[in-house]
């Protein structure tokens, strides 16, 4: 197996995740896109770990999963608060920094 095939896969997923982050209006959908990006990175890590016969790749991936979990939790909490205050999670409406 070529290393590049995994890396290409991960790149594609990552870019799809970027697209999703930039384009989606719904906050939850943005969080999903972020998860997509994180997963792409995980694949990258594991591939490199296998390529280099280094267990650090897997360890790092484990930590990434843990952090992602934490991040989703907090992110959802924020989205919920936004929903509570505005009755909508349309990110286009959150433009108080406009100007």
């Amino acid at each position, binding site marked *: 197996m070529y290393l590049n095939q995994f890396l290409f896969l991960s790149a594609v997923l990552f870019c799809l*995740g970027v697209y999703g982050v930039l384009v989606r209006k*719904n906050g939850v*959908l943005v969080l*999903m896109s972020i998860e997509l990006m994180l*997963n792409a990175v995980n*694949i990258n890590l594991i591939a490199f770990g296998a390529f280099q016969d280094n267990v650090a790749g897997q360890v790092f991936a484990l930590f990434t999963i843990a952090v992602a979990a934490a991040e989703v939790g907090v992110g959802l909490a924020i989205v919920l608060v936004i929903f509570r205050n505005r009755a909508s999670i349309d990110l286009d409406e959150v433009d108080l920094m406009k100007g």
Partner: protein
Amino acid sequence: MLAQNIIFGILAFVMIVAAFRLVTTKNVVRAALFLAIVLAGAAGQFILLAAEFVAVVQVLVYIGAIVVLLLFGVMLTRAPIGRDADVDNDQRLVGGLVALFLLGALAAVLADAWGDDKISFGTVQGVGEVSDSIFGPYVIAFEVVSILLLAALVGAVAIARRD
């Protein structure tokens, strides 16, 4: 070798299609399900790469907890169940261009850097090696991540608390 390539190809194809559908669907719930498919595909890729522990953790944590959490979020924020026309903002062109540009850049770099490298499985990196590494050289990182999880937990509760 061939079997691995075929399985990789199938899994990759499924993942890409699902990811694409994830970012383009107008149905929020389906987006969550497509995310689950992508995550499952990722787990499969991990097994192909002889990282079975990570694959299992992936399934447990990501699909089992995070996707459920996201579905909870969907429910709590009263996202319309079913098709919702108004789910993309007006940046689609720009976003598409940026994504494509990024893809092109990455592809160019990847092709240039690791064009002909192959993965050869040398040493066995099973669970035992992983746990040795976690509780050995990376024990501090492990502890920090634990505290991070605790902080996130407390933080999330603090943020979302109704006074």
